[in-house]
């Protein structure tokens, strides 16, 4: 249930942004969910909707659109690219859960599948990103 904390960050960021833009209400919020963070979408959406009640500016019911972003990992050593889903099977539950909390520990628990280097980069699909907000002024 740490999804709740992330949902709270999204709602607060959306409200901050809406105030900056002088919106009266928020009608749509698009969120990218990076594959690495392995968010429970239902819980996340539930938390978003709960936290949206009684906000100022108001957030319309069902304003949230969740899009999953596939991950892309790039090895700085050999140039190989791969997806987290390609290697998730090799991780035990504790390792996978740690990556769910802190995506960067992917550098601790996994290696480049081609050359074994820990020196790779998360180029896509790390975590939760607020992609766009629409509303009425």
């Amino acid at each position, binding site marked *: *249930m*740490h999804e*709740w*904390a*992330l949902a*709270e*960050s*999204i709602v*607060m*960021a*959306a409200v*901050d*942004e809406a105030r900056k833009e002088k919106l009266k209400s928020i009608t749509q919020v698009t969120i990218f969910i990076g594959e690495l963070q392995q968010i429970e979408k239902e819980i996340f959406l539930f938390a978003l909707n709960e936290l949206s009640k009684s906000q100022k500016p108001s957030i319309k019911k069902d304003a949230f659109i969740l899009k999953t972003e596939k991950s892309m990992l790039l090895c700085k050593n050999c140039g190989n690219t791969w997806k987290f889903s390609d290697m998730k099977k090799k991780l035990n539950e*504790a*390792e996978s859960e*740690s990556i769910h*909390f*802190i*995506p*960067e*520990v992917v*550098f*601790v*628990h996994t290696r480049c599948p081609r050359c074994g280097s*820990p*020196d790779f980069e998360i180029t896509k699909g*790390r*975590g*939760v*990103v*607020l*992609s766009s907000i629409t509303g009425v002024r």
Partner: protein
Amino acid sequence: MEPRTSVIEKRLKHINRIIAVASGKGGVGKSMVASSLALYLSQKGYKVGLLDLDLYGPSSHIILGVKNQFPTEEKGIIPPVVHGISFMSIVYFTEEKPSPFRGVDISNIILELLAITQWGCLDFLIIDMPPGIGDETLDVIRYMKKSEFLVVTTPSKVAMGAVGKLLRILLELKKPLLGVIENMTMTDSSFIQQEVKRLHVRYLGNIDFDTVLEDSIGDPDRLVQTQMMKDLSRTLQNIKL
């Protein structure tokens, strides 16, 4: 857009004071001072948290003997309470494996930890900092606005060379500076005291090199009985806690 920064202030809202134990140099006793300070305050009856931000070489869990603990998940993560201290560290997630992080990863980890950790109400949050003026120090300054710095050095000119630079940047940024502790002293010398005073920073006192300190590592009940702890308590009399 980065959503995590919006929620950090809320997460830290019910923390009265944040003290970052820092140094320009490694191996001077930051982790020892940070852990001992947390124990000291907890013994005084304060509600205390300890955050280990040395992500490459976390040490506080070794000093406090934290084993087989994991945060509880509830609207975020709640740090386990060890010897009265709410303790958060990257080790819960790395299982003591080596942690090859680049600067951008360090910043991301700090943001994530700050965004999801539910500290609740605390009188003090102590931060065990890594050495230097890199990402961690800059992020603490950026995201933990009310942080105050407690700086540790050894008697060596080599340590003071790096510590002086940290002090100067903290002064330039007008960060609250509680003062400097000179740790692991073995002879009488006023070198550090003079250097610190030259920068108009408070010299809080010294902690002698404690030859039997090692025996108490991992055992907080013994740690609080050490000469190191007595010396630390004496230096702490010089700051308002």
